[in-house]
């Protein structure tokens, strides 16, 4: 590649492939698997690209791919349409806001901001659920899902490491 030529990110690789992986992973996690009579926790896998895409670079497409991922999640779980798109976009917005602070930072700083993004995303989900159901979700179940989602940060970190230097216009 000649020097000075910027190779733009291919949306199929940095947006499409992670989105498909998330959808497939979410589908697998809805399989009726029980261990000792207890179902496995279901993390919201779409939070991974929601945070990573925001950190990698500002994008026109990413918010709309997040809407599609959120709608997939809503339909897969049988919830009200629009709940998870809104939550994912809140997490994405938190990532966009944190982006200037994250340049050059390591794993744990990113993970800290990932937790903040989860706080924003799940906060919006709780608020919208309260709006429709008239009550907040069970704190215990919410804590389990947040912890499960926080524990799957590593793919987001890999995604950020892979693509964060791919478009220097936004460095």
């Amino acid at each position, binding site marked *: 590649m000649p020097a000075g030529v910027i190779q733009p990110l291919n949306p199929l690789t940095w947006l499409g492939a992670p989105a498909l992986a998330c959808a497939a992973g979410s589908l697998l996690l809805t399989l009726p698997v029980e261990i000792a009579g207890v179902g496995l926790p*279901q993390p919201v896998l779409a939070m991974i690209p929601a945070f990573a895409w925001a950190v990698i670079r500002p994008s026109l497409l990413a918010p709309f791919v997040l809407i599609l991922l959120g709608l997939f999640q809503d339909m897969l779980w049988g919830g009200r*349409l629009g709940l998870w798109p809104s939550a994912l976009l809140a997490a994405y917005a938190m990532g966009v806001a944190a982006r200037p602070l994250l340049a050059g930072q390591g794993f744990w700083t990113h993970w800290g901001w990932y937790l903040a993004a989860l706080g924003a995303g799940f906060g919006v989900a709780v608020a919208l659920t309260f709006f429709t159901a008239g009550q907040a979700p069970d704190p215990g179940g919410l804590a389990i899902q947040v912890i499960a989602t926080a524990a799957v940060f590593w793919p987001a970190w890999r995604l950020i490491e892979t693509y964060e230097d791919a478009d220097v216009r936004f460095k």
Partner: protein
Amino acid sequence: MSLRDGPLNELRPPLAWLAVAALVLAGIVSLALFVNDHRGSPLDGVRGRFDGVAGAVGGVVSAPVHWVGDGAAAVGAYVDAGGQNGRLRAQLAQARQLEAQVEALREENGRLRALLQVKTDPPLPMVGARTVLDARGPFADTRLADIGSDAGVLEGNPALNEHGLVGRVVSVSPHVSRIMLLTDIESRIPVLIARTNGRAILTGDGGPAPTLDYLRTHDPVRPGDRILTSGDGGVIPRGLPVGVAVRSQDGWRVALDTDAGSIDLVRILLFRDFSQVVGPNALQPGALPSTSTDAPTPPASPAATAATAAAAAAHPAPKGQ
């Protein structure tokens, strides 16, 4: 020349602002979707088609899960059989695998027998189903069952397992139906306390034990009281077992009967309305009062009747008239 000094650097502010604008637009679209979506909306068709595809995929993908579950005990037994020679190990593993399969089949057979004994009074038609996808969590608690409108399932039909009421069907497509469990945060089921006949609404909150809300009458419930469906509203028949009342810090909750087992096999009651229970004729009203608005003829008073009779006696009509 570094890339930052190049002409493309000038693109940064507009692209960044456009990205923020895209984010705001996407947020508005999401919220508009959320506000406008409800059961019975035009989006139900999309949801039903998605459930059909997801159910088919889930049925295929979940089959290995059942196989793995059946074979896990056999694999564990194989690992424990260290010290045996290869041939005996293979034979033992094979025998244990068969034993595990037999045990799994026996267990499933027992559960299916128990499920077949689930009866309502009066009897109502039911269909059996297996759940193929499973959404667990504080925001949604639903199951996708591999049976749908082609078997007669309708929205609102109650679903039971061998222990009691599981939930109700909230969407149906030809081959699959989605069951909202009693624990889902949007679940509301009218129930009664068997001891006092007190009424309440069983409200899911995403946790394992739904709350008893809108309790009527003073002190209608005690710990350990049986909770049944009340039939109020006509969506679910009366008397289906739900659970046992327990006191919690924030009021009364119900320990569900269905906690005693998994919800992989269910029976769906093909309940339409109470005409199935008492017969359609019993719901027909009897003779109804007239709806005529004409002024009725006033009845003659006893005094006037007596005067008329006396006059008739004093002036009898001539014969021949």
